[in-house]
Protein backbone atom coordinates (compact mmCIF):
# COMPACT_ATOMS: atom_id res chain seq x y z
CA UNK A 1 0.00 0.00 0.00
CA UNK A 2 1.35 3.42 -0.91
CA UNK A 3 2.08 5.59 2.12
CA UNK A 4 -0.24 8.54 2.75
CA UNK A 5 1.23 11.72 1.34
CA UNK A 6 1.95 14.65 3.59
CA UNK A 7 0.28 17.79 2.24
CA UNK A 8 0.09 20.12 5.22
CA UNK A 9 3.44 21.16 6.66
CA UNK A 10 2.13 23.08 9.63
CA UNK A 11 4.43 22.62 12.61
CA UNK A 12 7.44 21.45 10.62
CA UNK A 13 10.75 23.14 11.53
CA UNK A 14 13.09 24.26 8.79
CA UNK A 15 16.86 24.52 9.14
CA UNK A 16 18.51 26.50 6.38
CA UNK A 17 22.17 25.85 5.71
CA UNK A 18 22.87 28.93 3.65
CA UNK A 19 24.25 32.35 4.24
CA UNK A 20 22.94 34.73 1.56
CA UNK A 21 20.38 36.95 3.25
CA UNK A 22 18.44 37.40 0.00
CA UNK A 23 18.05 33.64 -0.15
CA UNK A 24 17.21 32.99 3.47
CA UNK A 25 14.82 35.95 3.73
CA UNK A 26 12.75 34.79 0.76
CA UNK A 27 12.74 31.23 2.00
CA UNK A 28 11.80 32.20 5.55
CA UNK A 29 8.81 34.28 4.48
CA UNK A 30 7.63 31.63 1.99
CA UNK A 31 7.90 28.88 4.62
CA UNK A 32 5.99 30.95 7.17
CA UNK A 33 3.13 31.31 4.67
CA UNK A 34 2.97 27.55 4.27
CA UNK A 35 2.65 27.13 8.03
CA UNK A 36 6.14 26.06 9.11
CA UNK A 37 6.53 26.75 12.80
CA UNK A 38 10.10 27.92 12.99
CA UNK A 39 13.05 28.52 10.75
CA UNK A 40 16.67 28.39 11.91
CA UNK A 41 19.50 29.54 9.71
CA UNK A 42 23.08 28.25 9.92
CA UNK A 43 25.76 30.08 8.03
CA UNK A 44 28.98 28.45 6.90
CA UNK A 45 30.84 29.17 10.13
CA UNK A 46 28.06 27.90 12.37
CA UNK A 47 27.45 24.52 10.80
CA UNK A 48 29.06 22.73 13.69
CA UNK A 49 26.43 24.28 15.95
CA UNK A 50 23.78 22.11 14.34
CA UNK A 51 22.88 19.07 16.39
CA UNK A 52 22.23 16.52 13.68
CA UNK A 53 21.16 13.86 16.16
CA UNK A 54 18.30 16.06 17.32
CA UNK A 55 16.68 16.28 13.88
CA UNK A 56 13.40 14.40 13.70
CA UNK A 57 12.41 13.13 10.25
CA UNK A 58 8.73 13.64 11.09
CA UNK A 59 9.20 17.25 12.11
CA UNK A 60 12.33 18.70 10.52
CA UNK A 61 13.29 19.61 7.00
CA UNK A 62 16.71 20.86 5.94
CA UNK A 63 17.52 23.29 3.13
CA UNK A 64 21.12 23.02 1.99
CA UNK A 65 22.87 25.50 -0.28
CA UNK A 66 25.00 23.46 -2.67
CA UNK A 67 27.14 26.43 -3.69
CA UNK A 68 28.91 26.73 -0.37
CA UNK A 69 30.86 24.13 1.51
CA UNK A 70 27.82 22.95 3.41
CA UNK A 71 27.49 19.74 1.51
CA UNK A 72 30.99 18.55 2.42
CA UNK A 73 30.47 19.58 6.03
CA UNK A 74 27.13 17.81 6.16
CA UNK A 75 28.65 14.70 4.62
CA UNK A 76 31.09 14.55 7.51
CA UNK A 77 28.41 15.24 10.10
CA UNK A 78 25.78 12.78 8.94
CA UNK A 79 25.52 9.17 7.95
CA UNK A 80 25.22 9.35 4.17
CA UNK A 81 22.92 6.36 3.84
CA UNK A 82 20.43 7.83 6.29
CA UNK A 83 19.99 11.60 6.23
CA UNK A 84 18.62 12.87 9.55
CA UNK A 85 15.58 14.50 7.95
CA UNK A 86 14.33 15.40 4.46
CA UNK A 87 16.90 17.52 2.63
CA UNK A 88 16.03 20.05 -0.08
CA UNK A 89 18.93 21.35 -2.13
CA UNK A 90 19.32 25.02 -3.02
CA UNK A 91 20.94 24.97 -6.42
CA UNK A 92 22.67 27.92 -8.04
CA UNK A 93 25.54 26.36 -9.94
CA UNK A 94 24.06 23.18 -11.35
CA UNK A 95 27.31 21.42 -12.19
CA UNK A 96 27.64 17.66 -11.81
CA UNK A 97 30.03 18.07 -8.88
CA UNK A 98 27.62 20.23 -6.89
CA UNK A 99 24.64 18.07 -7.75
CA UNK A 100 26.49 14.88 -6.85
CA UNK A 101 27.18 16.38 -3.42
CA UNK A 102 23.46 16.91 -2.88
CA UNK A 103 22.70 13.40 -4.08
CA UNK A 104 25.24 11.97 -1.68
CA UNK A 105 23.67 13.57 1.37
CA UNK A 106 20.24 12.19 0.42
CA UNK A 107 18.64 15.30 -1.09
CA UNK A 108 15.15 14.45 -2.42
CA UNK A 109 14.12 17.77 -4.04
CA UNK A 110 15.66 21.08 -4.99
CA UNK A 111 14.91 24.75 -5.39
CA UNK A 112 16.72 26.82 -7.98
CA UNK A 113 18.34 30.06 -6.84
CA UNK A 114 17.04 32.73 -6.69
CA UNK A 115 14.22 31.07 -4.81
CA UNK A 116 10.73 31.66 -6.20
CA UNK A 117 7.99 31.83 -3.62
CA UNK A 118 5.64 29.77 -5.72
CA UNK A 119 8.09 26.88 -5.98
CA UNK A 120 8.61 26.37 -2.24
CA UNK A 121 5.42 24.38 -1.58
CA UNK A 122 6.16 22.05 -4.51
CA UNK A 123 9.72 21.45 -3.29
CA UNK A 124 8.50 20.74 0.25
CA UNK A 125 5.80 18.38 -1.02
CA UNK A 126 8.18 16.43 -3.23
CA UNK A 127 11.15 16.53 -0.84
CA UNK A 128 9.31 15.39 2.27
CA UNK A 129 7.12 12.80 0.57
CA UNK A 130 10.02 11.38 -1.44
CA UNK A 131 11.99 11.10 1.80
CA UNK A 132 9.08 9.25 3.44
CA UNK A 133 8.69 6.99 0.41
CA UNK A 134 12.39 6.17 0.53
CA UNK A 135 12.10 5.32 4.22
CA UNK A 136 9.09 3.15 3.50
CA UNK A 137 11.07 1.34 0.79
CA UNK A 138 14.04 0.81 3.11
CA UNK A 139 11.71 -0.61 5.73
CA UNK A 140 10.19 -2.96 3.15
CA UNK A 141 13.60 -4.15 2.02
CA UNK A 142 14.59 -4.77 5.63
CA UNK A 143 11.36 -6.67 6.18
CA UNK A 144 11.94 -8.76 3.07
CA UNK A 145 15.47 -9.53 4.26
CA UNK A 146 14.13 -10.62 7.63
CA UNK A 147 11.59 -12.86 5.94
CA UNK A 148 14.24 -14.27 3.63
CA UNK A 149 16.37 -15.19 6.63
CA UNK A 150 13.32 -16.80 8.23
CA UNK A 151 12.56 -19.09 5.27
CA UNK A 152 14.78 -21.81 6.73
CA UNK A 153 12.38 -22.05 9.67
CA UNK A 154 9.47 -22.43 7.26
CA UNK A 155 11.21 -25.32 5.51
CA UNK A 156 12.03 -26.98 8.81
CA UNK A 157 8.46 -26.51 10.07
CA UNK A 158 6.95 -27.96 6.86
CA UNK A 159 9.19 -31.01 7.08
CA UNK A 160 8.47 -31.46 10.79
CA UNK A 161 4.71 -31.17 10.28
CA UNK A 162 4.79 -33.57 7.31
CA UNK A 163 6.50 -36.12 9.54
CA UNK A 164 4.28 -35.48 12.55
CA UNK A 165 0.97 -35.54 10.70
CA UNK A 166 1.73 -37.68 7.63
CA UNK A 167 0.56 -34.96 5.25
CA UNK A 168 1.92 -33.50 2.01
CA UNK A 169 4.16 -30.43 1.92
CA UNK A 170 1.33 -28.34 0.45
CA UNK A 171 -1.01 -29.36 3.25
CA UNK A 172 1.66 -28.70 5.85
CA UNK A 173 2.39 -25.27 4.43
CA UNK A 174 -1.31 -24.38 4.25
CA UNK A 175 -1.84 -25.42 7.86
CA UNK A 176 1.18 -23.47 9.09
CA UNK A 177 0.02 -20.43 7.20
CA UNK A 178 -3.50 -20.69 8.56
CA UNK A 179 -2.25 -21.21 12.11
CA UNK A 180 0.14 -18.26 11.85
CA UNK A 181 -2.73 -16.03 10.74
CA UNK A 182 -4.87 -17.27 13.59
CA UNK A 183 -2.05 -16.48 16.02
CA UNK A 184 -1.58 -13.09 14.27
CA UNK A 185 2.09 -13.80 13.69
CA UNK A 186 4.04 -13.65 10.49
CA UNK A 187 4.71 -17.07 8.97
CA UNK A 188 8.44 -17.06 9.55
CA UNK A 189 8.22 -16.21 13.25
CA UNK A 190 5.43 -18.72 13.77
CA UNK A 191 7.43 -21.44 12.04
CA UNK A 192 10.48 -20.67 14.14
CA UNK A 193 8.40 -21.01 17.27
CA UNK A 194 6.74 -24.17 15.93
CA UNK A 195 10.08 -25.82 15.24
CA UNK A 196 11.46 -24.84 18.63
CA UNK A 197 8.32 -26.08 20.41
CA UNK A 198 8.29 -29.34 18.42
CA UNK A 199 11.89 -30.20 19.09
CA UNK A 200 12.74 -32.40 22.04
CA UNK A 201 14.48 -30.61 24.87
CA UNK A 202 18.16 -30.51 24.14
CA UNK A 203 20.14 -32.96 26.21
CA UNK A 204 23.81 -32.16 26.39
CA UNK A 205 26.12 -35.02 25.54
CA UNK A 206 28.65 -35.96 28.08
CA UNK A 207 31.20 -33.20 28.23
CA UNK A 208 29.69 -31.35 25.28
CA UNK A 209 28.20 -27.92 25.58
CA UNK A 210 25.48 -27.23 23.04
CA UNK A 211 25.99 -24.09 21.09
CA UNK A 212 23.69 -23.35 18.22
CA UNK A 213 21.13 -21.09 16.78
CA UNK A 214 18.71 -23.81 15.73
CA UNK A 215 17.34 -26.07 18.44
CA UNK A 216 16.07 -28.54 15.85
CA UNK A 217 19.53 -29.00 14.38
CA UNK A 218 21.01 -29.10 17.80
CA UNK A 219 18.44 -31.67 18.90
CA UNK A 220 19.17 -33.80 15.85
CA UNK A 221 22.83 -33.57 16.55
CA UNK A 222 22.15 -34.49 20.18
CA UNK A 223 20.10 -37.53 19.24
CA UNK A 224 22.48 -38.85 16.61
Amino acid at each position, binding site marked *: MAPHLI*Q*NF*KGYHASIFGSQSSLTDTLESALA*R*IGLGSVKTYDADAITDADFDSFNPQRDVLFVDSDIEFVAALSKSTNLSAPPAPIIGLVGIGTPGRLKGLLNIGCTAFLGKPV*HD*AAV*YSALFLGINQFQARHEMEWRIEDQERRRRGRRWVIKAVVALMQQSAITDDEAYAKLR*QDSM*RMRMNLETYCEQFVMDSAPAPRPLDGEQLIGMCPATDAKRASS
Partner: protein
Amino acid sequence: MSSRPVRIGLMFSTTGSYSVVTKTMLNGAMLALSECYRLFPDLVIEPRIVNPEGEIRRYGELAEGLLKDGVRHVVGCYTSLSRKEVIPLFEKYDSLLWYPTHYEGFETSNNVIYTGAAPNQHILPLLDYMLAKAGKRAFCVGSNYIWAWENTRVFREAITIKGGSVLAEKYAAIGDTDMRQIVDTIISERPDFIFSNLIGSSAYAFFRQFRAACDELGIDQPARMPVASCSLSEPELEEIGAGCVDGHYSSSVYFSTVKTAANALFTDALATAFPGSPAASADSEAAYIATTLLLRSIFHTQSDDIKLVKKAAVRQRIAAPQGEVWLDPQTFHSWLTPRIGRSNKASTFDIVEQASGPVRPDPYLVDSSPRYTVASPSPQLRIVT
Protein backbone atom coordinates in the same frame (compact mmCIF):
# COMPACT_ATOMS: atom_id res chain seq x y z
CA MET B 1 0.25 64.50 -5.80
CA SER B 2 2.28 64.69 -8.93
CA SER B 3 0.25 65.26 -12.04
CA ARG B 4 2.26 62.60 -13.85
CA PRO B 5 -0.30 59.99 -14.87
CA VAL B 6 -0.03 56.60 -13.25
CA ARG B 7 -0.75 53.88 -15.76
CA ILE B 8 -2.60 50.79 -14.57
CA GLY B 9 -3.64 47.80 -16.67
CA LEU B 10 -7.11 46.25 -16.68
CA MET B 11 -6.94 42.85 -18.37
CA PHE B 12 -10.29 41.13 -18.76
CA SER B 13 -11.65 38.86 -21.50
CA THR B 14 -14.76 40.81 -22.34
CA THR B 15 -15.33 38.40 -25.21
CA GLY B 16 -14.92 34.62 -25.18
CA SER B 17 -16.50 31.67 -23.38
CA TYR B 18 -16.49 33.16 -19.86
CA SER B 19 -17.04 36.81 -20.84
CA VAL B 20 -20.39 36.99 -19.04
CA VAL B 21 -18.45 37.09 -15.78
CA THR B 22 -15.43 39.03 -16.90
CA LYS B 23 -17.49 41.89 -18.33
CA THR B 24 -18.86 42.48 -14.84
CA MET B 25 -15.32 42.38 -13.46
CA LEU B 26 -14.32 45.18 -15.78
CA ASN B 27 -17.44 47.08 -14.68
CA GLY B 28 -16.39 46.69 -11.02
CA ALA B 29 -12.89 47.94 -11.79
CA MET B 30 -14.23 50.90 -13.80
CA LEU B 31 -16.58 51.84 -10.96
CA ALA B 32 -13.64 51.92 -8.54
CA LEU B 33 -11.79 54.14 -10.99
CA SER B 34 -14.65 56.63 -11.24
CA GLU B 35 -14.91 56.75 -7.44
CA CYS B 36 -11.19 57.39 -7.26
CA TYR B 37 -11.47 60.29 -9.72
CA ARG B 38 -14.08 61.78 -7.41
CA LEU B 39 -12.23 61.16 -4.13
CA PHE B 40 -8.71 61.96 -5.32
CA PRO B 41 -9.11 64.56 -8.07
CA ASP B 42 -5.38 65.24 -8.15
CA LEU B 43 -4.51 61.63 -8.81
CA VAL B 44 -4.15 61.14 -12.54
CA ILE B 45 -4.72 57.55 -13.54
CA GLU B 46 -4.37 56.30 -17.07
CA PRO B 47 -6.18 52.97 -17.39
CA ARG B 48 -4.96 50.68 -20.16
CA ILE B 49 -7.75 48.21 -20.92
CA VAL B 50 -6.87 45.02 -22.80
CA ASN B 51 -9.01 42.07 -23.86
CA PRO B 52 -7.32 38.66 -24.25
CA GLU B 53 -10.61 37.24 -25.61
CA GLY B 54 -10.31 34.14 -23.45
CA GLU B 55 -7.25 33.00 -25.46
CA ILE B 56 -4.46 31.84 -23.19
CA ARG B 57 -1.74 32.92 -25.61
CA ARG B 58 -3.14 36.45 -25.72
CA TYR B 59 -2.89 36.80 -21.93
CA GLY B 60 0.89 36.43 -22.11
CA GLU B 61 1.26 38.75 -25.08
CA LEU B 62 -0.95 41.49 -23.68
CA ALA B 63 0.46 41.30 -20.16
CA GLU B 64 4.01 41.52 -21.46
CA GLY B 65 3.02 44.44 -23.69
CA LEU B 66 1.68 46.36 -20.70
CA LEU B 67 4.68 45.54 -18.51
CA LYS B 68 7.16 46.46 -21.24
CA ASP B 69 5.42 49.82 -21.50
CA GLY B 70 6.18 50.45 -17.84
CA VAL B 71 2.81 49.52 -16.34
CA ARG B 72 3.56 48.30 -12.80
CA HIS B 73 0.07 47.22 -11.75
CA VAL B 74 -2.49 45.15 -13.63
CA VAL B 75 -5.91 44.18 -12.30
CA GLY B 76 -7.08 41.15 -14.19
CA CYS B 77 -7.40 37.47 -15.10
CA TYR B 78 -10.33 35.23 -14.24
CA THR B 79 -9.27 31.63 -14.87
CA SER B 80 -6.39 30.08 -12.96
CA LEU B 81 -4.91 29.02 -16.26
CA SER B 82 -4.54 32.66 -17.32
CA ARG B 83 -3.15 33.68 -13.92
CA LYS B 84 -0.54 30.92 -14.02
CA GLU B 85 0.34 32.00 -17.56
CA VAL B 86 1.13 35.59 -16.62
CA ILE B 87 2.67 35.27 -13.12
CA PRO B 88 6.19 34.57 -14.50
CA LEU B 89 5.93 37.82 -16.46
CA PHE B 90 4.97 39.79 -13.37
CA GLU B 91 7.93 38.24 -11.56
CA LYS B 92 10.25 39.01 -14.47
CA TYR B 93 9.20 42.67 -14.62
CA ASP B 94 8.77 42.87 -10.82
CA SER B 95 5.24 44.19 -11.13
CA LEU B 96 1.98 43.40 -9.35
CA LEU B 97 -0.97 41.38 -10.61
CA TRP B 98 -4.14 42.20 -8.67
CA TYR B 99 -6.12 38.97 -9.08
CA PRO B 100 -9.78 39.65 -8.43
CA THR B 101 -11.62 36.35 -8.17
CA HIS B 102 -12.00 33.22 -6.05
CA TYR B 103 -9.58 30.42 -6.86
CA GLU B 104 -8.40 26.98 -5.76
CA GLY B 105 -5.54 28.11 -3.49
CA PHE B 106 -2.10 26.54 -2.98
CA GLU B 107 -0.33 29.58 -4.28
CA THR B 108 1.30 32.73 -3.02
CA SER B 109 3.51 35.04 -4.99
CA ASN B 110 5.34 38.20 -4.09
CA ASN B 111 3.95 39.62 -7.31
CA VAL B 112 0.25 38.88 -6.80
CA ILE B 113 -2.44 40.41 -4.56
CA TYR B 114 -5.49 38.14 -4.20
CA THR B 115 -8.84 39.82 -3.50
CA GLY B 116 -11.10 36.84 -4.22
CA ALA B 117 -11.87 33.95 -1.90
CA ALA B 118 -9.33 31.25 -0.96
CA PRO B 119 -10.57 27.64 -0.63
CA ASN B 120 -11.21 27.88 3.13
CA GLN B 121 -13.54 30.78 2.33
CA HIS B 122 -15.60 29.00 -0.34
CA ILE B 123 -15.32 25.18 -0.64
CA LEU B 124 -15.27 24.26 3.03
CA PRO B 125 -18.30 26.38 4.09
CA LEU B 126 -20.25 25.00 1.09
CA LEU B 127 -19.42 21.41 2.01
CA ASP B 128 -20.55 21.87 5.61
CA TYR B 129 -23.81 23.38 4.44
CA MET B 130 -24.57 20.69 1.85
CA LEU B 131 -23.72 17.85 4.24
CA ALA B 132 -26.15 19.31 6.76
CA LYS B 133 -28.95 20.11 4.32
CA ALA B 134 -28.69 17.73 1.36
CA GLY B 135 -26.86 14.54 2.34
CA LYS B 136 -23.51 12.78 2.22
CA ARG B 137 -23.33 11.43 -1.34
CA ALA B 138 -21.92 13.91 -3.83
CA PHE B 139 -21.34 13.75 -7.57
CA CYS B 140 -18.58 16.05 -8.88
CA VAL B 141 -18.58 17.68 -12.32
CA GLY B 142 -16.17 20.26 -13.62
CA SER B 143 -14.42 21.92 -16.52
CA ASN B 144 -11.24 20.07 -17.34
CA TYR B 145 -8.61 22.38 -15.85
CA ILE B 146 -6.83 23.28 -12.63
CA TRP B 147 -9.74 25.07 -10.91
CA ALA B 148 -11.98 22.01 -11.10
CA TRP B 149 -9.24 19.45 -10.45
CA GLU B 150 -7.97 21.12 -7.29
CA ASN B 151 -11.38 22.15 -5.97
CA THR B 152 -12.63 18.62 -6.43
CA ARG B 153 -9.57 17.22 -4.67
CA VAL B 154 -10.04 19.54 -1.68
CA PHE B 155 -13.75 18.72 -1.66
CA ARG B 156 -13.14 14.95 -1.93
CA GLU B 157 -10.71 14.94 0.97
CA ALA B 158 -12.91 17.09 3.17
CA ILE B 159 -16.11 15.11 2.49
CA THR B 160 -14.31 11.80 3.11
CA ILE B 161 -13.10 13.00 6.49
CA LYS B 162 -16.64 14.03 7.39
CA GLY B 163 -18.05 10.61 6.53
CA GLY B 164 -19.47 11.45 3.11
CA SER B 165 -18.46 10.16 -0.29
CA VAL B 166 -17.91 11.21 -3.89
CA LEU B 167 -19.82 8.86 -6.17
CA ALA B 168 -18.00 9.95 -9.33
CA GLU B 169 -16.05 12.79 -10.93
CA LYS B 170 -16.76 13.88 -14.51
CA TYR B 171 -14.96 16.58 -16.47
CA ALA B 172 -15.87 18.40 -19.69
CA ALA B 173 -13.63 20.51 -21.91
CA ILE B 174 -13.90 24.28 -21.35
CA GLY B 175 -16.62 25.51 -23.69
CA ASP B 176 -18.17 22.04 -24.20
CA THR B 177 -21.95 22.29 -24.11
CA ASP B 178 -23.04 18.71 -24.74
CA MET B 179 -23.79 17.51 -21.23
CA ARG B 180 -26.06 14.57 -22.08
CA GLN B 181 -23.68 11.86 -20.92
CA ILE B 182 -22.87 13.60 -17.64
CA VAL B 183 -26.56 14.28 -16.98
CA ASP B 184 -27.52 10.64 -17.70
CA THR B 185 -24.83 9.35 -15.35
CA ILE B 186 -25.94 11.67 -12.56
CA ILE B 187 -29.57 10.65 -12.93
CA SER B 188 -28.67 6.98 -12.77
CA GLU B 189 -26.42 7.51 -9.72
CA ARG B 190 -28.98 9.64 -7.82
CA PRO B 191 -26.51 11.55 -5.59
CA ASP B 192 -27.72 13.71 -2.70
CA PHE B 193 -26.20 16.74 -4.42
CA ILE B 194 -23.91 17.74 -7.27
CA PHE B 195 -20.72 19.70 -6.69
CA SER B 196 -20.12 21.63 -9.91
CA ASN B 197 -16.90 23.28 -11.00
CA LEU B 198 -18.08 23.80 -14.56
CA ILE B 199 -17.44 27.31 -15.83
CA GLY B 200 -18.91 29.57 -18.49
CA SER B 201 -21.03 28.15 -21.28
CA SER B 202 -20.48 24.56 -20.07
CA ALA B 203 -22.02 25.45 -16.72
CA TYR B 204 -25.06 27.14 -18.27
CA ALA B 205 -25.63 24.18 -20.63
CA PHE B 206 -25.36 21.77 -17.69
CA PHE B 207 -27.91 23.63 -15.59
CA ARG B 208 -30.39 23.73 -18.51
CA GLN B 209 -29.93 20.12 -19.64
CA PHE B 210 -29.93 18.69 -16.12
CA ARG B 211 -33.14 20.52 -15.19
CA ALA B 212 -34.80 19.49 -18.46
CA ALA B 213 -33.85 15.82 -17.99
CA CYS B 214 -35.14 15.84 -14.40
CA ASP B 215 -38.39 17.54 -15.44
CA GLU B 216 -38.91 14.88 -18.09
CA LEU B 217 -38.58 12.16 -15.45
CA GLY B 218 -40.76 14.01 -12.93
CA ILE B 219 -37.81 14.60 -10.59
CA ASP B 220 -37.88 17.78 -8.50
CA GLN B 221 -34.24 18.61 -9.25
CA PRO B 222 -33.63 21.47 -6.78
CA ALA B 223 -35.14 19.43 -3.94
CA ARG B 224 -33.81 15.97 -4.81
CA MET B 225 -30.44 16.67 -6.47
CA PRO B 226 -29.43 20.30 -5.90
CA VAL B 227 -26.35 21.66 -7.63
CA ALA B 228 -23.78 23.43 -5.47
CA SER B 229 -20.82 25.41 -6.75
CA CYS B 230 -18.26 27.98 -5.73
CA SER B 231 -18.38 30.08 -8.84
CA LEU B 232 -22.04 30.61 -9.74
CA SER B 233 -22.87 34.31 -9.78
CA GLU B 234 -25.82 36.55 -10.62
CA PRO B 235 -24.83 37.38 -14.23
CA GLU B 236 -24.57 33.66 -14.86
CA LEU B 237 -28.05 33.05 -13.45
CA GLU B 238 -29.35 35.50 -16.06
CA GLU B 239 -27.47 33.53 -18.69
CA ILE B 240 -28.90 30.17 -17.56
CA GLY B 241 -32.32 31.55 -18.27
CA ALA B 242 -35.85 31.31 -16.92
CA GLY B 243 -37.22 27.92 -15.97
CA CYS B 244 -33.98 26.45 -14.69
CA VAL B 245 -32.41 29.30 -12.76
CA ASP B 246 -33.75 28.62 -9.28
CA GLY B 247 -32.68 26.29 -6.46
CA HIS B 248 -28.93 26.25 -7.10
CA TYR B 249 -26.51 26.74 -4.20
CA SER B 250 -23.48 28.96 -4.45
CA SER B 251 -20.74 29.65 -1.95
CA SER B 252 -19.47 33.17 -2.23
CA VAL B 253 -18.20 36.06 -0.17
CA TYR B 254 -20.58 38.38 -1.94
CA PHE B 255 -24.11 38.28 -3.38
CA SER B 256 -25.93 41.26 -4.84
CA THR B 257 -28.55 40.76 -2.10
CA VAL B 258 -26.10 41.38 0.79
CA LYS B 259 -27.70 43.88 3.16
CA THR B 260 -25.09 46.55 3.80
CA ALA B 261 -25.15 50.28 3.16
CA ALA B 262 -22.02 49.96 1.03
CA ASN B 263 -23.70 47.30 -1.11
CA ALA B 264 -26.77 49.45 -1.70
CA LEU B 265 -24.48 52.18 -3.03
CA PHE B 266 -22.44 49.66 -5.03
CA THR B 267 -25.38 48.00 -6.78
CA ASP B 268 -27.01 51.38 -7.51
CA ALA B 269 -23.79 52.81 -8.87
CA LEU B 270 -23.18 49.79 -11.10
CA ALA B 271 -26.73 49.87 -12.43
CA THR B 272 -26.43 53.60 -13.15
CA ALA B 273 -22.98 53.45 -14.71
CA PHE B 274 -23.59 50.32 -16.77
CA PRO B 275 -27.28 50.16 -17.64
CA GLY B 276 -28.18 46.95 -19.41
CA SER B 277 -25.13 45.16 -18.06
CA PRO B 278 -25.44 42.05 -15.90
CA ALA B 279 -26.06 42.46 -12.17
CA ALA B 280 -23.41 42.92 -9.52
CA SER B 281 -21.58 39.73 -8.64
CA ALA B 282 -18.78 38.40 -6.42
CA ASP B 283 -16.35 38.84 -9.29
CA SER B 284 -17.37 42.43 -9.98
CA GLU B 285 -17.08 43.15 -6.26
CA ALA B 286 -13.63 41.51 -6.06
CA ALA B 287 -12.46 43.58 -9.05
CA TYR B 288 -13.90 46.68 -7.37
CA ILE B 289 -12.04 45.84 -4.14
CA ALA B 290 -8.77 45.14 -5.98
CA THR B 291 -8.91 48.38 -7.93
CA THR B 292 -9.95 50.40 -4.88
CA LEU B 293 -7.10 48.95 -2.80
CA LEU B 294 -4.64 49.65 -5.60
CA LEU B 295 -5.73 53.23 -6.22
CA ARG B 296 -5.88 54.15 -2.54
CA SER B 297 -2.43 52.67 -2.03
CA ILE B 298 -1.04 54.61 -4.99
CA PHE B 299 -2.62 57.76 -3.59
CA HIS B 300 -1.19 57.21 -0.10
CA THR B 301 2.31 56.42 -1.34
CA GLN B 302 2.29 59.01 -4.15
CA SER B 303 3.99 56.34 -6.19
CA ASP B 304 3.42 53.16 -8.17
CA ASP B 305 6.53 51.52 -6.71
CA ILE B 306 5.36 48.00 -5.93
CA LYS B 307 7.10 47.66 -2.57
CA LEU B 308 5.58 50.92 -1.32
CA VAL B 309 2.17 50.09 -2.76
CA LYS B 310 2.17 46.67 -1.10
CA LYS B 311 3.09 48.22 2.25
CA ALA B 312 0.29 50.74 1.89
CA ALA B 313 -2.20 48.09 0.72
CA VAL B 314 -1.89 45.98 3.87
CA ARG B 315 -2.68 49.05 5.97
CA GLN B 316 -6.01 49.64 4.18
CA ARG B 317 -9.36 48.57 5.55
CA ILE B 318 -12.15 48.87 3.04
CA ALA B 319 -15.84 49.11 3.85
CA ALA B 320 -16.61 46.89 0.86
CA PRO B 321 -20.09 45.91 -0.31
CA GLN B 322 -19.71 42.50 1.42
CA GLY B 323 -18.51 44.11 4.68
CA GLU B 324 -15.09 45.04 5.93
CA VAL B 325 -12.17 43.68 3.87
CA TRP B 326 -8.43 43.84 4.43
CA LEU B 327 -5.31 42.07 3.25
CA ASP B 328 -3.42 39.45 5.22
CA PRO B 329 0.16 40.77 5.31
CA GLN B 330 1.67 37.28 5.22
CA THR B 331 -0.12 35.78 2.20
CA PHE B 332 -1.49 38.90 0.46
CA HIS B 333 -4.85 37.20 0.29
CA SER B 334 -7.96 38.92 1.68
CA TRP B 335 -9.99 38.58 4.85
CA LEU B 336 -13.50 38.01 3.47
CA THR B 337 -16.94 36.96 4.75
CA PRO B 338 -18.16 33.55 3.45
CA ARG B 339 -21.83 33.14 2.60
CA ILE B 340 -24.10 30.49 1.07
CA GLY B 341 -26.81 31.64 -1.35
CA ARG B 342 -29.70 29.78 -3.00
CA SER B 343 -30.73 31.08 -6.40
CA ASN B 344 -34.29 32.21 -7.00
CA LYS B 345 -36.44 32.84 -10.05
CA ALA B 346 -35.49 36.54 -10.08
CA SER B 347 -31.89 35.50 -10.88
CA THR B 348 -30.55 36.59 -7.53
CA PHE B 349 -29.53 34.66 -4.43
CA ASP B 350 -31.36 34.30 -1.15
CA ILE B 351 -28.62 34.23 1.47
CA VAL B 352 -29.24 31.13 3.58
CA GLU B 353 -26.11 31.25 5.73
CA GLN B 354 -23.22 33.59 6.42
CA ALA B 355 -20.15 33.77 8.65
CA SER B 356 -20.28 36.13 11.62
CA GLY B 357 -17.41 38.22 10.22
CA PRO B 358 -14.41 38.25 7.89
CA VAL B 359 -12.48 34.96 7.84
CA ARG B 360 -8.69 34.78 7.61
CA PRO B 361 -7.52 33.49 4.22
CA ASP B 362 -5.77 30.11 4.38
CA PRO B 363 -4.58 29.50 0.81
CA TYR B 364 -2.59 26.37 1.70
CA LEU B 365 -5.34 25.11 4.04
CA VAL B 366 -2.71 25.03 6.77
CA ASP B 367 -5.39 25.37 9.44
CA SER B 368 -8.16 23.54 7.63
CA SER B 369 -6.77 20.30 6.20
CA PRO B 370 -5.26 17.14 7.66
CA ARG B 371 -1.53 16.56 7.58
CA TYR B 372 -1.87 13.54 5.29
CA THR B 373 -3.76 13.23 2.04
CA VAL B 374 -7.01 11.39 2.54
CA ALA B 375 -7.77 8.31 0.48
CA SER B 376 -11.35 7.40 -0.34
CA PRO B 377 -12.59 4.64 1.94
CA SER B 378 -11.31 1.22 0.94
CA PRO B 379 -13.73 -1.65 0.42
CA GLN B 380 -14.62 -3.35 3.69
CA LEU B 381 -12.22 -6.21 4.40
CA ARG B 382 -13.49 -9.58 5.49
CA ILE B 383 -11.21 -11.74 7.60
CA VAL B 384 -11.05 -15.24 6.17
CA THR B 385 -9.77 -18.01 8.41
